């Protein structure tokens, strides 16, 4: 795997606040190309992967993600997604994907009414997506959440459809992988934490994988999401599978990882 093979475009809305984290994960942790895409520009600058980062785009006015959807860049993102391009929406980015119609459902206010900021356990329900191919089905990941509106809801027919097509990628679980009410931080229907589009090229998730990518921050399970995305590109372009994260990480950080064992 060569560094810089995949270009990440990180969209910046007024009020985005996880854009630098996503940029850092792509560029510094994984040694890939990364570029910020200002929301007023209708140009994806040749990005292979679009990241809609977390934050409070447009101050969450009206509804989370409702205004961001009308930004010029989103027209291009929708076009990119409809052509099969890889799009990942994290937290507020997930909300924007739902408002844009790229994914079904809505995110309501947390059932607790409280902003939830903590590490949660996620069970990987589908390990054959381009976002989870480096995970095992049933594997439990530790990734942080930070949101006030993460309570996933949709109508019964859509829910059945999501289940049938294995579009539910992550569910909140306890440390042993049991899906329980106690492990549900926001009241989401069936503990849903992340879903993919029917074609599998668009992922929305409330937890923040970019915040669990650098060992300096304690957990690195979020790297599996980025690594999976890279795996997909590598196997597409060269036909080989790869072990990427270690080497690239070492070169990107000058071997800093050694200090963390």
């Amino acid at each position, binding site marked *: 795997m060569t560094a810089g093979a995949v270009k990440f475009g990180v969209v910046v809305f007024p009020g985005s606040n996880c854009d630098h984290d996503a940029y850092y994960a792509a560029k510094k942790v994984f040694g890939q190309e990364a570029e910020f895409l200002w929301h007023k520009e209708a140009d994806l600058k040749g990005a292979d992967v679009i990241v809609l980062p977390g934050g409070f785009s447009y101050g969450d006015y*009206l*509804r989370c993600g*409702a205004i961001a959807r*009308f930004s010029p860049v989103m027209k291009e993102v929708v076009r990119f997604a409809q052509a099969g391009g890889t799009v990942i929406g994290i937290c507020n980015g997930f909300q924007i994907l739902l*408002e844009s119609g790229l994914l079904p*459902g*809505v995110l*309501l*206010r*947390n*059932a*607790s*009414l409280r902003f939830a900021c903590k590490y949660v356990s996620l069970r990987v329900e589908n390990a054959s997506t381009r976002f989870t191919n480096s995970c095992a089905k049933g594997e439990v990941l530790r990734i942080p959440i930070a949101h006030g509106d993460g309570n996933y*809801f*949709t*109508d019964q027919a859509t829910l059945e459809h999501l289940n049938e097509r294995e579009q539910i990628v992550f569910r909140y679980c306890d440390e042993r992988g049991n899906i329980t009410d106690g492990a549900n931080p926001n*009241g989401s229907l069936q503990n849903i934490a992340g879903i993919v589009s029917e074609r599998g090229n668009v992922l929305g998730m409330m937890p923040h994988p970019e915040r669990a990518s650098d060992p300096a921050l304690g957990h690195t399970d979020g790297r599996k999401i980025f690594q999976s995305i890279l795996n997909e590109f590598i196997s597409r372009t060269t036909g080989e599978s790869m072990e990427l994260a270690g080497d690239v990480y070492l070169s990107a950080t000058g071997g800093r990882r050694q200090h963390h064992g």
Partner: protein
Amino acid sequence: MKANMTTKPSNPHGLNHRQKGTGTMYRSRIRITLRPSILDPQGKAVGHAIETLGVGRVHDVRVGKYIEMMVDESTPEGARSATEEVCKKLLANPVMEDYTFEVEKI
């Protein structure tokens, strides 16, 4: 900033230039409410506060949104159809919200 404070804005709502269009304006009053099937934790919290307030016989509190906007159209039908479109495409999310509105000639 100081200078601005003494200048009275001639067009405080930014609407005058719109009046030139058709000469007729309507005001839309829009109410957006969570669908009955959607839990409303905000309404519940407000309900608890009302209980604490001790004012009796108040229950089933639901919190929604109220939006006003001016529409330049020559007919009430035109104003209604413009309002409908804005509600459908932006103001309400049909997965979780319903909306009602009325238009009034200004």
